[in-house]
């Protein structure tokens, strides 16, 4: 294990950024977000970013192609997948797990080349948690917030940053850094994680076998009643992966891009015959069935949630996956 003095964290960032683009969680216009490091940019004091780390691999908007019309000629220029290596520092264990979930969708054949390129170019440096928020429940999903994965795992204790490479990419990153010293991290105190109010959530009931029972549960009506139909939960969620492909009329051609979509929206997966989810009840049900039932059913039991707590913090009416899971299991809302 390697060490670095926290008082000179800026020098570590400068050393990494000297070789490749570096993103760190920082406050930009008052909001914690993964931002491109440049001299002077400091890490946020917030536990986690408002938007998740998925932005770096699956951005909200990305161009796919441009069509230019000149007279009777149409020229097409497809967008290039990312070819520059980058480092993302300070990813929490929950967001790191979300990459596994996104991989199971985007890297399944046929792989999404834009996503794949970013995953290949990225070196993920995770950061262990020591001060969780009350909304954290990653431990309920089998995640250890004090032992995050990624290419390099980091811990902060007292005045020292401890770094441990987990992969070849991680080894290469650490080897490229000067002045790293050897050291062993002290044992971390985990008592605060035992006090988390949502630590005992049990998601094991949502096996694929009972799919239609969950689908037809009477609780959806009531749970979805006050849903505003906005996309806050989907857009801050590290595992939401739905997107739409749209054309923007530039006046002299077309810019084809893809952008995040939300199953909470009335025009989500609109088809020639119209929509198959005519009311908010069906849209709301889709989101939670996907996380709790469909995704695990299709991906070896992996629940489509990482317990980051963002939807608990951001939903305008405080409806969230914890309330939904509990209501489904109790059979009443």
């Amino acid at each position: 294990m390697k060490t670095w003095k926290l008082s000179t964290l800026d020098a570590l960032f400068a050393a990494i950024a000297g070789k490749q683009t570096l993103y760190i969680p920082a406050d930009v216009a008052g909001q914690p977000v993964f931002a491109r490091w440049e001299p002077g940019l400091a890490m946020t004091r917030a536990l986690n970013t408002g938007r998740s780390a998925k932005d770096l691999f699956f951005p909200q908007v990305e161009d796919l192609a441009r069509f230019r019309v000149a007279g009777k000629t149409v020229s097409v220029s497809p967008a290039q997948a990312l070819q520059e290596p980058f480092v993302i520092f300070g990813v929490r264990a929950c967001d790191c797990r979300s990459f596994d979930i996104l991989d199971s969708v985007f890297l399944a054949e046929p792989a999404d080349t834009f996503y794949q390129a970013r995953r290949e170019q990225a070196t993920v440096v995770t950061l262990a948690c020591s001060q969780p928020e009350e909304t954290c429940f990653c431990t309920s999903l089998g995640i250890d917030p004090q032992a995050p994965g990624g290419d390099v795992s980091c811990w902060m204790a007292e005045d020292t940053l401890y770094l441990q490479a987990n992969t070849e990419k991680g080894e290469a990153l650490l080897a490229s850094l000067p002045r790293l010293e050897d050291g062993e991290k002290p044992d971390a105190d985990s008592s605060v994680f035992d006090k988390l109010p949502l630590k005992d959530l049990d998601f094991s009931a949502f096996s694929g076998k009972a799919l239609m029972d969950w689908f037809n549960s009477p609780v959806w009506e009531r749970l979805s009643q006050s849903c505003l139909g906005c996309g806050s939960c989907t857009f801050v969620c590290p595992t939401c992966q739905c997107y739409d492909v749209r054309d923007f009329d530039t006046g002299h051609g077309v810019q084809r891009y893809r952008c995040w979509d939300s199953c909470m929206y009335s025009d989500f997966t609109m088809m020639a015959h119209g929509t198959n989810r005519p009311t908010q009840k069906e849209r709301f049900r889709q989101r939670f069935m996907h996380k709790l039932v469909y995704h695990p059913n299709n991906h070896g039991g992996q629940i489509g949630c990482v317990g980051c707590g963002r939807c608990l913090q951001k939903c305008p009416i405080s409806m969230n996956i914890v309330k939904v899971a509990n209501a489904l299991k109790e059979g009443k809302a």
Partner: protein
Amino acid sequence: MQSRVIEKAASLLESGACTRVLGWKAGAFFYDVTPAVFTCAQEVREQMVFNPFCGANLSKYLIAESRKEGRIAVFLKPCDTFSFVQLQKEHRIARDKVWAVGVQCRGMCDIDSLKELGLKGVTAVEEAEDDLRVTTLYQEKTISRKEALSPRCHTCKSRKLLDCDELIGDQGQDLPSSRFAQVEALEAMTPEERFAFWRGELSKCIRCNACRNVCPACSCEKCVFDNPNSGVQNKAAASSFEENLFHIIRAFHVAGRCTDCGECTRVCPQHIPLHLLNRKFIKDMNEFYGPYQAGGDFDAKPPMLAFTLDDPEASIITNGRDGQ
């Protein structure tokens, strides 16, 4: 206040005066309350809450709820009643299907305000007169209720409870409010500074539409931005131009109808101070056309729907030959 609200809700159902009650349901914590419709008194007594974190404006739900069978009781805070009146002026609520209970308010609290104070892992809050006793994963701390207020409540414009069928607490009065101070600060900036401020804020937007969907003035059955046939349907800003314009267009659309309830800023997951756009319009309208409060009464003519010859922009009828 909590017990009076809950008893009132239960008795309205028991007496048969209402078939449904629109209130709040408790969550895992004290602050994660969800608007909910109750149909039985027992459920109200077991699950309904009314605490300082019940900040959501319930008026907009009445558009859908007042179209259903039977009468619904609703608990409205003073600022919510302005939206209630405005929506009636726009013929969006069937008034006879609603039993409005006005609940006097001394400002609502917001979990984000607690977090701003540096409190992490907040698991419980107890209200004690003018203080809040806060329990977190790391400490116990007593803070003043004022520190925990939602930012919008610091510039509360009125404690009047408008058009209610009954009140819990006293009728209130308009308050001297400094709500335009931030707008004035923006007006005092140079255009470049102001542009930089709004670019910084609006570039945070993730187009989740929470501001639009919560807004009582945004009550179109189908928003133009959701309509595949409109030609401007959009799920994300394709360019920074669109990013800026979405919110500015929305502010124009609700101008003269926005009651300044502040829900847009409360729900924004990216903490964009969207209400400042609306307030700028309110301030301008007040200065151009005389003081006007949307939802303030049933009679006043909305400035955007009225015209007089001394209009500051009389060019509409004088064809640009102002003053002739």
